């Protein structure tokens, strides 16, 4: 099935970036990812069910993440857990580096407010 070409190439869509980032802290299920992303972004990113699972589906197909068994035996069996793959880590690192450079450039241009 053909997918949107930019789902796993730099620059990453914010949704993809946040999903990858949330999986760095360990395997999570969909709701966990959504909540983590929301917390990290201070509420700026709110993943609707459709957006979240469509992205997960595309990212799994692109090999950035994979579905795994739940880490705990008492976990809800209806919930699928996801784990980040090495390819995903690699992409996340590259994107973070790019964002870092972007922030440096911005700072050099005085885009950040001066601290009082």
């Amino acid at each position, binding site marked *: *099935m053909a997918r949107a070409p930019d789902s796993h190439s730099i620059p990453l869509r914010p949704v993809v970036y946040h999903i990858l980032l949330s999986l760095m802290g360990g395997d999570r299920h*969909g709701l966990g990812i959504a909540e983590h992303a929301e917390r990290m972004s201070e509420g700026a990113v709110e993943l609707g069910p459709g957006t979240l699972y469509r992205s997960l589906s595309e990212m799994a197909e692109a090999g950035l993440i994979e579905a795994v068994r739940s880490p705990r035996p008492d976990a809800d069996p*209806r919930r699928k857990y996801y784990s980040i793959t090495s390819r995903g880590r690699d992409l996340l690192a590259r994107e973070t580096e790019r964002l870092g450079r972007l922030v440096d450039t911005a700072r050099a241009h005085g885009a950040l407010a001066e601290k009082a």
Partner: protein
Amino acid sequence: MTAPRLEAHRRAFCLLLRLYPKWFRQAYGEEMTLLFTTRLERAGGRWTRAILWWRALEDTVRNATVLHRDDSEGGGLRMGSLTQDMRYAVRRLVRAPVFTLGAVALLAVGIGATTAVFSLVDALILRPPPWHEPERVVHVYQDSDDGQPSSNSFPATRDMAEYGEMFEGVAATAPWTVTWDGPAGLTPVDVEFTTSGYMHVLGLDVQRGRWFEPEHDVVGGPFAAVVSAAAWRSRLGGDPDVVGRTVQLNGFPVTIIGVGPERLTGTVNPLLTDFWLSISSAPVGGPAWVGTLERREDHWFLALARLASGVTVAQAQSAMDALAARHAELYPEIDRGRDITVFASRDVRMHPQGDAQLRLGGALLAGLALTVLVLACANLANLLLVRGLGRSGEMAVRSALGAPKGRVARLFLLESAILAAMGGAAGLVLTRWILAALPALPLDDTLGGTLELGVDARVVLVALGLMSATGVLFGLAPAMRSARTDVSRALRDDRRGASSDRGTIRLRSVLVAVQVAASLVLVLVTGLLARSLAALQTVDPGVDAERIAYVQVDWTRAGLSLAESRAAVEELRARIATLPGVEHVALSSRLPALPQGTTTTEVEGYTPPAGTNAVELPFAIVTDGYFDAMGVPLLAGRGFSQDDVAGGSGVSIVVSEAAAQRFWGDADPIGRRMRGQGAQEWSRTVVGVVADVSVGSLGEAPAPLFYFSARQSLGTPTYVLARATGDPAALLAPMRREIGAWRPSVLVSSQGTLAAHLGSTLAAPRLAARAMGAFSLLALLLAGLGIYTVVSFTVARRSSELGIRIALGADRSGVVRMVVREVATVVGIGLVIGVLVAALGASRVGDALFGVDALDPITFVGAVLVLLAVAWLAAWLPARRAARADPVEALRAS
């Protein structure tokens, strides 16, 4: 949030998921639902949930669109252009949530109210009876004493059945209420005493067991009942072994021998009957029911007949004329001048005497609901027009790029169709709410039974019809207008070009005028009803209502003889009198302002204007001390006392002032004589005259009323009335306890304070005033919204012109005036139309009013002022915004 509510949300979300491709739904549907419901559970309040729903909607539409596109690009089917347009329309609607929600809410209210009213009107007036060949079924009525087709004596219905060449069958049935000692305790149930020919006359058959046989048509046969299909399910849990079961009715064991036909609710549509009882079960109703089977003076039965093959209503009528003549000859003192009338079943809804009022009420309601729907649609059309004009540029670009005109119009139509579908769906939900709330309203008292209402196929069909009509009608106008838009002019002129379209302006103005007129009519009627209600509430009922408590008892199960009940009444009165806080006690057979028993009486020396030699008058059976307890002043003679004993030379009567006036004018009524119709002796003598009380309803003209002493009457009073030294409500519990301790077989069937009872008799007018108030508030809101839309639209389109005016030094309040003036003419026209319509229609509501004229000037002026205030506010808000605007901004924006 409660579990069932959450479950409802969950199911709705699952429906939404169907928008996704199947593979996606199967892979992730469950988890997505879990995610959504988890968030929903955490959501604090209603608004958070609403926002969550809106986001889910948006999220679904966006992602489902992408997924479908991806699927089809991967070698799947090419999307049809219709689907594309559909998606485009949905996306546009999702992107403008305020517009979408507003439009859906408007439609939902309009369609919901109209559908609910249709359901009511359908049940009351339209739905044909579920009989076989109803055109062959006729109703037969003997006249009442005042010469109107009314009801029949049981012997008369037997005489009708002798006309075998006219009628294939004749059935008699009489509605009554009995107490059922069932699983839910003592419950009042609606029954009909019915003959064995009933099923054949209706052309139906029981679904289980059997119907009554001729052996059930005489007293002495077995007590038998047929349970109605509805009661079988709701009251007996659909018990498959119900045939043969015994139910306790009024303390008598009655055997259920069958379950009624599925669709038959009862004889008088749409009132529900729980049990049909055989004539042999008459003792269940009490000795009076046994007696009435032989009495030609009592008219307790309705008669239905099935015409023999080829017989017309006219032929049956002439046969009944012959029967009436025979009756007049055989029973001249009872039946002279008493006609018998045959009605085709399509000409009778509930009863010939009440049908006109029923139809008027139905028409009034339907008119109201349609008015609201028209208002809702007018506003929607306005909103669509405004949007359509705002998009004339976009549409022109599409046309210029080669989109066929039909395609452009289709986009608009799709949008309005989606809106109408959503509005219709929400409207149906609203209908169910309204209908569920209706039985809680005191309609039962007005109609004398329980009403069957529900959303059935007919109702859904009506809702669908309304939905498509509104969707197409009000989508079409802007669609055609936009498709017609001159490409080059629209592109050159962008926004201003279309606004100067005279047709559009005229259309919008007409819509506003219609709304103003309609809301004015509604506000007026509300005002009249409210004033009428206020007048009713201050009516003096003629009794000291504030200090009296009543408990109604049911003597049936006590099984007392006449002498025993007379003694029991005295005993009960004495016992209640000993309770602390009781000042006076009396028993009566009726409460004020409640239509109850009447007696047919001949008055010595008085000839009624027409009909027979007797008059039908309401009566009350009361104990000694009744007038003291109720605070009814004695005007002449005496009240009842120990001297009035049974078996003496005669019966003492106390009459109301209105009765004395009617029969004897200014002459002294004391010592005048009367007798029951057909009696030989003038045995009843007037011993006293008391002041008038409300007999049938509050606010009625003073009506005559006769009082009999409980010691001399064959009936037993059932209302125990206690006048309290303090709060009457505090007496209720002790009174009930005392009765229970005295005789457990004497049941309490109702209780309350007299003030509360009088208040409850105003339930119908209060309901009417409230319903009308709700309608007019809605209409006012809609009209205000309409005016607001039009003015803000005008202001937006003329922003550059207004900007120039202000820049050139025009007075800002002058600008407001200019904008408001434009809409003021339209509002004025609407007001004039509204006043005219209201004045013309006033005579139709006049009968429903008390103490206020249908053309009451204060109400008219008040309503006009209310409308003016709303219109002014609705116009002033956007106009002021325009005047405040920065002229530079306004100019730059253009």
